[in-house]
């Protein structure tokens, strides 16, 4: 069986695939070699590091929850609606994926910062300021990870056979009921994939966070920020943190991807 499959792949692709894999795996081998494993646990449980881990989990999970609540409707509408101007929206939605996160963070400052056109109102009406707060870090993380979720939903929704939804309608379920009992369960794999991707992206978020939410040791210093600080002061800690992020992200991706495949 395997031999059969191998035969149908041109050898040149094998070479390319091999180089690509090595290229992607190499840095992690380097990192794991330099990681001081003997002090790994001790470093991870240091108060400052532990605080960053907790904060990162809170930020990434909150951001993913917002992605789910907002990204699901957006992805669905993008896939299904034919309203004019949606093409422009689609392009803008994907911007945070290709934009340098620092640019994203700057843009967020202009909108939601203290002097930003929305942030100013938030400040004067509700006394709410987002920069230098955990909420700000969550917003920065949401901003960069939302496109991943939207894209996952949009792809799944546009590939979903419309016959299933028509059947549901025909069998007496209204559009809302159809959405929740037929459409949504059928794109469950995509939802899991979207959650995995946006969570992992939110966890790794650095540029937009430090630009928009700043670096505050208690409120906004997530793992990547802690890693950045450690890189210049305590390289050993940096390696431990880097490895820790690899382990967390990898386990989330593997776990959710496993579930995704199982669901299919």
């Amino acid at each position: 069986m395997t031999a059969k499959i191998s035969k149908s792949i041109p050898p040149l692709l094998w070479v390319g695939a091999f180089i690509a894999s090595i290229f992607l795996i190499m840095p992690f081998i380097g990192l794991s070699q330099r990681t001081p494993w003997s002090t790994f646990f001790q470093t991870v449980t240091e108060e400052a590091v532990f605080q960053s881990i907790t904060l990162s989990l809170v930020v990434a999970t909150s951001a993913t929850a917002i992605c789910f609540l907002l990204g699901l409707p957006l992805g669905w509408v993008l896939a299904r609606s034919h309203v004019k101007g949606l093409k422009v929206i689609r392009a803008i939605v994907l911007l945070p994926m290709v934009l340098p996160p620092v640019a994203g963070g700057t843009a967020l400052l202009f909108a939601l910062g203290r002097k930003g056109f929305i942030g100013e109102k938030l400040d004067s009406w509700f006394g709410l300021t987002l920069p230098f707060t955990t909420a700000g870090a969550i917003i920065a993380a949401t901003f960069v990870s939302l496109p991943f979720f939207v894209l996952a939903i949009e792809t799944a929704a546009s590939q979903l056979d419309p016959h299933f939804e028509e059947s549901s309608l025909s069998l007496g379920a209204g559009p809302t009921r159809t959405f929740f009992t037929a459409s949504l369960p059928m794109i469950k794999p995509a939802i899991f994939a979207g959650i995995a991707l946006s969570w992992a992206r939110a966890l790794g978020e650095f540029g937009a966070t430090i630009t928009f939410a700043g670096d505050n040791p208690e409120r906004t210093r997530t793992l990547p920020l802690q890693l950045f600080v450690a890189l210049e002061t305590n390289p050993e800690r940096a390696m431990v943190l880097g490895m820790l992020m690899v382990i967390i992200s990898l386990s989330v991706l593997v776990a959710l991807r496993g579930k995704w495949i199982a669901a299919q």
Partner: protein
Amino acid sequence: MTTSKNFRGILRLNAFLAVFSFLSLSCGLSQNSLHVMAASSLTEAFEEIAEEFKKETQVEISLTIAGSASLASQIEDGAKVDVVALADEETMKRINETRRVEQGSLKIFATNYLVLATPLENPESIESLQDLKGSISAICAPQVPCGKLSLKLAIQENIDLNPSSLEPNVRSVRTKIELGEVDAGLIYITDINEKINHIIIDRSEQITTNYPIASIHGGKIESTDFIEFVLSPAGQKILEKYRFGAPS
């Protein structure tokens, strides 16, 4: 058949591009150029110095600008470098532990000190360090020289700074002030501009940071010429233009 041909073509092209870009990157520093690493606060001053130096000696300067701490990490990891100019002596000592600095070449070439900066409109009417209490402020993170200097200043003035954000470098402190995201911040006198308001802190000038320059062991012979140029009246004049203090 055609597709597979095209495909191979694309693969070859890719391989070619990959190798080409790799080579061009690694050979980017031509034999004739001197590789200088300088702290972020030196950006404009060193760009001008590099230009003047080239006019005089025909030696091209390839400048790498980053925070002092980042530069130190890069140098420790074996980055190719001839001359390094940093914003504090402590970091230079750190480099000396792993890669030898030519001891004779190590010189202090400039000094700098901190000022209190606010947005132009100064919404919280901040006039002194004491006014920082309860306001939203930013300083440099303690791992970079301007952050160390800020903490020294706070101790001298016996003030709890309690900043909202520890920015990775002095320029991002300034940006946060310019944008009005913070009410005040501590920045170098050399980093002030017309978009912000600055207040000289009474005894701040007593706490200065010294900018050391040195050539790294195994660097080019022209390193000495460059360091001499920075210390020469011509070099010092450029630094003075950017408000750097002369070494004492």
